[in-house]
């Protein structure tokens, strides 16, 4: 009964989404406030219905109800509870349900917290959101129903794919979807502004919290996915320029550009049309990612089981929303009033440059991702565009961006003093340059990109710090005064500085990969092997049974100059239910670097094949991303995002969003 209630709730959600899409729009077109406000309660009701539905599916997975096809195909009674839950979204149907749940969550957020939004804007936002919801609910119900039943029910499920039986899966997709889907709100705001034909700086203020939330989650989601791939695939790689990874990177690039341009729009009422365009772009890339993953046009670790009818359906949704939004844009954008003036050398100008670089990078990724698909359609030739392409285009463009970042932070609005800023940044730039030269000299003819990146990373970190210092520091001021000045700085200033430091930290981690060491060796128990500055010795290699797998585990000691600094247990697991095996890398974090060991097959003479990597500063890659997200969250907490509210939050809740 619970299952069927969940199913019914899903159809109910579709009905509510349709009402939410149509009635408020009718209201705003006729200037009827009563009809316009219908969207709010519908959005809340829809969220409750989808939550109910999702809960029912989780319950079915927890109870191992194999009369539900989705459970029977993706779960097993012996799977640990945590993977029973994460198995809900470890498959196409369940993950789509999570997708719409998050979509409805953001809709409910606008409905519940957006009490201060202008009525017409809110009605239109919710109507657009309703359209998106309805399209995806129809997609789920008609092509990928998670509540399809089996009768008679099998006695046992087919098990969750072993690669997905990992804590990473429990976290990665929800974070990523919060990001992807969060941009749907930004998209809805843009479409609403176009429908209304009016947009001003206040719009930017309303949309910015949502954009920041989406951006933070997307940042974390991508970082989490990268770390998951790093430790689970056993190749020691953290980014493969896999089309699906690119599909998450493109909305991130567009979203990053949006977060910056919306700041210009809020402050200076400029770049309106461009900001709207970016909003459409960011969500379009999210949809494109969804399409690529689920249509089966790609071969990828991430691709779900393909089904042509799904691909066509998603393509139709894609065409409808992207095409519709761009058509609306072409029709309405010329009517929007132009905004504030600024000189090319100004913070606005720097942010425009930032936007140009980010979007061209995004275009580069898009070309690299779609070119092979297009070429195959046209000529039948199959090609891959590998890492060198992306490193060349995106790498160079993003490094150029890194040069501009500290300038953008330090320049004044409207008209900036380039010379003064350059003076202020000269120390940071000089230190960065020294590091570049030193590294370049030690590498002697190695990859030139790595020392450049390292130098730039240091320059960004110091530049961001110097910006904060310049704002706080006053000659002769006492420590107490300085402290109160630091506290007086708006949180968003701290947030942006921190996020930029995060960029530097990530860049440093990326640059450091060039200084790692890698060995593939036949390891015998007791025989040491050198990797980078460490020696690795296998103490034993033995079999061991696990809950639903069996594994071969090597116990390895890591020594530095004779003393043991860490012990790890790399393993190879075999899952009998699916007849597959996975590699569990043994990872020891030593300061910020990591020693990474993955083992392969045992050879006949008692040795075991192993890959050993020394990866200095590799954790910086993900720590930097966490810093970026934390910076975003700090900006979000800024009191200024809330000022202007006519009355304190009635509910008493900390109204971070749109207040």
């Amino acid at each position, binding site marked *: 009964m619970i299952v069927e209630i969940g199913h019914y709730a899903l159809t109910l959600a579709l009905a509510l989404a349709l009402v939410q899409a149509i009635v408020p729009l009718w209201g705003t077109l006729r200037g009827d406030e009563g009809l316009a406000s219908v969207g709010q309660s519908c959005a809340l009701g829809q969220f409750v219905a989808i939550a109910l539905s999702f809960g029912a599916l989780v319950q079915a997975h927890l109870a191992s109800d194999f009369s539900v096809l989705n459970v029977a195909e993706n779960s097993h009674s012996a799977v640990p509870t945590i993977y029973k839950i994460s198995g809900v979204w470890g498959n196409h149907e369940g993950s789509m349900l999570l997708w719409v749940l998050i979509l409805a969550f953001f809709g409910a957020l606008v409905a519940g917290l957006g009490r201060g939004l202008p009525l017409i804007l809110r009605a239109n936002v919710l109507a657009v959101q309703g359209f998106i919801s309805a399209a995806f609910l129809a997609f789920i119900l008609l092509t990928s129903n998670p509540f399809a039943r089996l009768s008679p029910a099998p006695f*046992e499920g087919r098990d969750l794919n072993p690669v997905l039986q990992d804590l990473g899966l429990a976290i990665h997709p929800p974070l990523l979807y919060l990001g992807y889907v969060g941009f749907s709100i930004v998209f809805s705001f843009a479409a609403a502004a176009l429908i209304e034909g009016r947009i001003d700086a206040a719009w930017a203020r309303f949309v910015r919290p949502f954009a920041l939330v989406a951006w933070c989650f997307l940042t974390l989601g991508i970082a989490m996915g990268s770390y998951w791939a790093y430790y689970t695939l056993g190749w020691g790689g953290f980014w493969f320029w896999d089309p699906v990874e690119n599909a998450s990177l493109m909305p991130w690039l567009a979203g990053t550009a949006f977060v910056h341009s919306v700041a210009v729009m809020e402050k200076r009422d400029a770049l309106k049309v461009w900001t709207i365009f970016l909003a459409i772009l960011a969500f379009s890339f999210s949809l494109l990612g969804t399409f690529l993953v689920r249509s089966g046009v790609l071969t990828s670790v991430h691709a779900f089981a393909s089904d042509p009818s799904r691909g066509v359906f998603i393509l139709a949704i894609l065409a409808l929303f992207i095409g519709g939004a761009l058509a609306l844009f072409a029709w309405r954008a010329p009517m929007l009033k132009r905004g504030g003036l600024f000189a090319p050398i100004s913070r606005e100008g720097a942010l425009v440059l930032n936007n140009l670089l980010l979007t061209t990078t995004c275009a580069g990724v898009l070309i690299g991702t779609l070119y092979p698909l297009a070429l195959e359609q046209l000529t039948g030739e199959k090609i891959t565009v590998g890492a060198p392409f992306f490193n060349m285009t995106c790498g160079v463009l993003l490094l150029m961006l890194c040069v501009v970042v500290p300038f953008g932070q330090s320049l004044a609005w409207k008209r900036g003093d380039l010379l003064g800023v350059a003076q202020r940044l000269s120390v940071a730039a000089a230190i960065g340059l020294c590091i570049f030269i030193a590294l370049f000299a030690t590498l002697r003819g190695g990859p030139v990109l790595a020392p450049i990146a390292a130098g730039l990373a240091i320059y960004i970190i110091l530049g961001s710090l110097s910006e904060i210092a310049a704002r706080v520091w006053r000659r002769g001021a006492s420590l107490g005064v300085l402290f109160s000045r630091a506290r007086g700085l708006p949180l968003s200033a701290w947030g942006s500085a921190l996020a930029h430091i995060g960029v530097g930290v990530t860049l440093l981690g990326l640059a450091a990969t060039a200084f790692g060491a890698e060995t593939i060796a036949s390891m015998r128990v007791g025989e040491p092997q050198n990797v980078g500055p460490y020696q690795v010795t296998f103490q034993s290699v033995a079999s061991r049974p696990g809950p639903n797998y069996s594994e071969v585990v090597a116990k390895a000691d890591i020594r530095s100059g004779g003393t043991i600094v860490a012990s790890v247990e790399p393993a190879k697991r075999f899952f009998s239910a699916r007849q597959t095996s996975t590699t569990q890398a043994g990872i020891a974090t030593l300061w910020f670097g990591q020693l990474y060991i993955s083992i392969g097959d045992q050879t006949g003479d008692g040795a075991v094949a192993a890959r050993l990597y020394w990866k200095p500063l590799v954790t910086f890659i993900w720590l930097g991303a966490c810093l970026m997200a934390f910076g975003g969250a700090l900006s979000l907490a800024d009191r200024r995002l809330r000022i202007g509210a006519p009355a304190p939050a009635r509910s008493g809740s900390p109204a971070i969003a749109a207040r």
Partner: protein
Amino acid sequence: MLWVAFALMTGAAILCALWPLSRRRSGPEGQARAIAFHKAQLAEIDRDVERGQLPPSEAAGARAEAARRLIAASDVAKTTAGAGDGRASLRARAAVVIVFVAIPLVTFGLYLKLGSPNLPDQPILARAGAAGNGDLGAALAKIEAHLIADPNDGRGFKVIAPVYMRLGRFDDAAKAFGEALRLLGEDAPMRADYGEALTAAAGGIVTAQARAAFEQALTDRGDLPKARYYIGLAAEQDGDKPKATAIYQKLLADGPAGAPWLANVRERLAGLEAAPAAPGGEAAAIAALDPAAQQSAIRGMVERLAERLAQNGDDAQGWLRLIRAYGVLHETDKARDALVQARKAMTGNETAGRDLDALAREFGLGS
């Protein structure tokens, strides 16, 4: 009970959608917030100048711009306040009607098409008692672990395969039987078990692969009842009634009195004799129904077959049966469709092609 819950949910959804219509408007509160925002921005310019984020020379211009925006926002507040024509109540009533009709219509319509309201939940705990799953699961895990350590232990596979059969994991059972046969060498009864597992995995259809297994078992031991039974079943599923009847009768005649499977064979035989036209094993049950229900039951079976073939077309016998069924039901169009699909699926399979041609001639389907 379920329908009461559905009705309550639908009611709640309708109430939820209509709730805002019943409230009085309090005026355009939202624009006030936009105005407050613009005022705050105007005030912030001074702070920006103080922090050095805006050159003092530009402050005047920025102030003028911000003031203009404030005025524009106030204008919007005034115009929206007076917007709306006098027909609001009419529209509200129309909206109520639409919501009242649309929500139940969409929801019930879709749910009736997609849902399975008659299926109860079947959590594993509720079923475990009956199947004794706990102990079995532990034993299974043990054998599985052993087989992982020693994947060449044919006897292990031989032990585990029937357990899989009991658990309904037919695919695994077939795999295990296959492994056992590979490792232990040919063994007619086990070959027949393998065929049985394949058949069960295919939902009771004797696939070509399963049939080959039974035939091989029979070449080794011509009297093996299980293999003979399934060959009979295959004949029955092909619609070759005389052959099936002959095999079943022979089985009954040869069988030792009191063998447990005799009842099963007798049942099949009875079913065959009772319902000459209906293919498959549900014949007896169908024969007992009144003619209209009979017709719909047969159609249901045919549809299931068609669906299965649409998913996996690699089954010549299945196609033949489907086309024959359509022919018997006088659904010539569907028969022709199925023929086209069958030819597509069977390209390269000459025997099947000939059979299809013969069948097409029999029902006058043309080519």
